[in-house]
């Protein structure tokens, strides 16, 4: 196997960029699921964030405002899901899927006027001499702000869930909403907050595509990234750092298989194209085998309807 053509620093730098939309969406969904809510509408929220961010950035000329708009827009959309599942007690799986359908349609309608428009460019982060350090310069200091924000979000979510009282309460709500309710916590309000956070993160992920990665608005441009984000949360067994691992693993294999093709490796392309999915499954099998149920870490109330009877 000739791998000499592929430099690890280039690969790592590329995979960090490629993984960022999935990572953003997945870390948001992790918080939602930790609160005991299964929102399968990530794809819909992502693409709605993509167009909201795009529209705001074009209208204001500011990509930063665009990202804020993406977060706000997708969070607003997620509140549809929130109201339906938390107040009207609808089934979460079906409501999430409906949200995806609705989000795809709505974003295309909103985006009709933005086809073919070029968004304002995001200013490059200039970290000065840091970027010139061999290897680390490109891997660690050569990215745009959103890559660092996504990493910071992972750290923040980890801190929040494991080191803060609010995070403890959120997890308690996800483990047993009835017990949390009995202790006097506002289950519905906490869950709504989590859903909005998940929506905002998905929106950021979508806007990363429409404002930095592509950058353009086209219908259906998320092309299934939201579904991968959902899979990554499960892959991570609902642990923030493993979300990072999963997203980078998936993005890494995707980038690697393209690089292997470009380097002329004689492996049939169709197998290479399958590899991100297959590798993710295999890694999860290895990680999940030989452990007890506790290791699965799924929030016990995940997807269950909460209705306060007292």
């Amino acid at each position, binding site marked *: 196997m000739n791998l000499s053509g592929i*430099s690890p620093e280039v690969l790592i730098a590329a995979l960090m960029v490629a993984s960022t939309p999935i990572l953003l969406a997945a870390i948001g969904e992790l918080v939602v699921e930790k609160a005991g809510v299964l929102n399968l509408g990530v794809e819909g929220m992502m693409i709605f964030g993509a167009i909201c961010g795009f529209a705001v950035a074009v209208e204001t000329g500011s990509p930063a405002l665009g990202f804020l708009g993406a977060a706000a827009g997708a969070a607003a959309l997620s509140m549809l899901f929130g109201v339906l599942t938390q107040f009207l007690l609808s089934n979460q799986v079906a409501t999430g899927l409906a949200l995806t359908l609705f989000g795809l349609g709505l974003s295309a309608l909103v985006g009709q006027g933005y086809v073919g428009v070029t968004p304002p460019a995001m200013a490059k982060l200039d970290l000065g001499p840091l970027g010139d350090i061999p290897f680390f310069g490109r891997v660690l200091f050569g990215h745009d702000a959103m890559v660092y924000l996504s990493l910071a979000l992972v750290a923040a979510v980890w801190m929040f869930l494991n080191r803060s009282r609010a995070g403890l309460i959120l997890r308690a709500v996800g483990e047993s909403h009835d017990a949390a309710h009995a202790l006097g916590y506002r289950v519905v309000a906490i869950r709504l907050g989590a859903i909005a956070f998940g929506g905002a993160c998905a929106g950021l992920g979508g806007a990363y595509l429409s404002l930095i990665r*592509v950058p353009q608005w*086209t*219908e259906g441009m998320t*092309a299934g990234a939201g579904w991968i984000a959902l899979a990554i949360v499960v892959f991570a067994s609902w642990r923030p750092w493993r979300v990072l691992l999963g997203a980078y693993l998936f993005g890494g294999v995707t980038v690697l298989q*393209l*690089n292997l093709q*470009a380097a002329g490796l004689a492996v049939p392309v169709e197998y290479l194209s399958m590899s991100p999915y297959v590798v993710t499954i295999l890694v999860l099998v290895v990680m999940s085998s030989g452990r007890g149920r506790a290791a699965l870490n799924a929030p016990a109330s995940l997807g269950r309807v909460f209705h306060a009877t007292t």
Partner: protein
Amino acid sequence: MKRRTVLGGMAAAAAGTLATPLRAAGDPLKVGFVYVGPIGDLGWTHEHDQGRLAVEAHYGDKVETFYQENVPEGADAERVLTQMCLSGAGLIFTTSFGYMDATLNVARKFPNVKFEHATGYKTAPNVATYSARFYEGRAVIGTIAGRMTKTNKVGYIASYPIPEVIRGINSAYIHARKVNPDVEFVVVWVYTWFDPAKEGDAAQALIDQGCDVVMQHTDSTAPQAVAKEAGNVMTFGQASDMSAYAPWPRVTSIIDNWAPYYIRRVGEVMDGTWQPAQTWEGIAEGMVKIGPMSERLPAEVRAEAEALIEAMRKKEYHPFTGPLNKQDGSPWLAEGEVADDGTLLGMNFYVEGLKGSIPS
């Protein structure tokens, strides 16, 4: 099948006479368009819709056009086509290869309706096919790529290993090598027509592998954005002009220009001269257009490209002219011999010099 045909035919005969009365003089001709993607894709479907708008602009209230976007290939396409026929369409353009059998099935049921199927190879008394010789455009950008590359590595983002795509790779490569014998093509198959993130990743991989020219046979502008970011990498617009990335990295483009053909065929249906032809047109007829060339290209490269375009416009030059060998070294075209359309339409081999193999 026989039973099916008989029953289907009977039903269709009834339906056909019932629902598609001959157009009274003065009634507008209803022209339907079936699209595989959204009209906002800025690529394949967008360009077909531009053709539809041109028909409307050209004929005014003598035509009535309607379209349906995002139509999946297969059973759904057949239903959409049937419903269009039932609503009185006189001419329907089906703009994706995958609609082929659906188009023929429906055409059999509605002999009074004319059908135009893009990129297919099956015709019928009321079904014509049409496609564009995009490989002529590939010859132009191949020449530019051969002249401009400094690393002698040209990246190619390919969608699926089908004749259309393989033809493009071959044509671009032949012409790049002609002006630069050291040039090497690196092909990445992404197995999608449209997935911005994946196309961007592919472009990044090619650039990381040392390519300083990236060609694409996919529809999004993501590769353009990645190339722009990289700075010293050149690209070409695909399907539409992608002028947002001019003058650099996009230095020129291959544009699908369906408007002249659509206007012509609609006119032929109107005056009753429509025939089920197999049309395959290129630069000469205007179906393939080369977008404006960037000032960033040296004047002599631009002149060379323009000369090539002119030669093809006058039909003095065919991009697949011998001597050409297949990848395995076996002879394909002798000196001065020109490839026949049959071989080109079903092209499933690389020409000599290309590395790697076509996935199958």
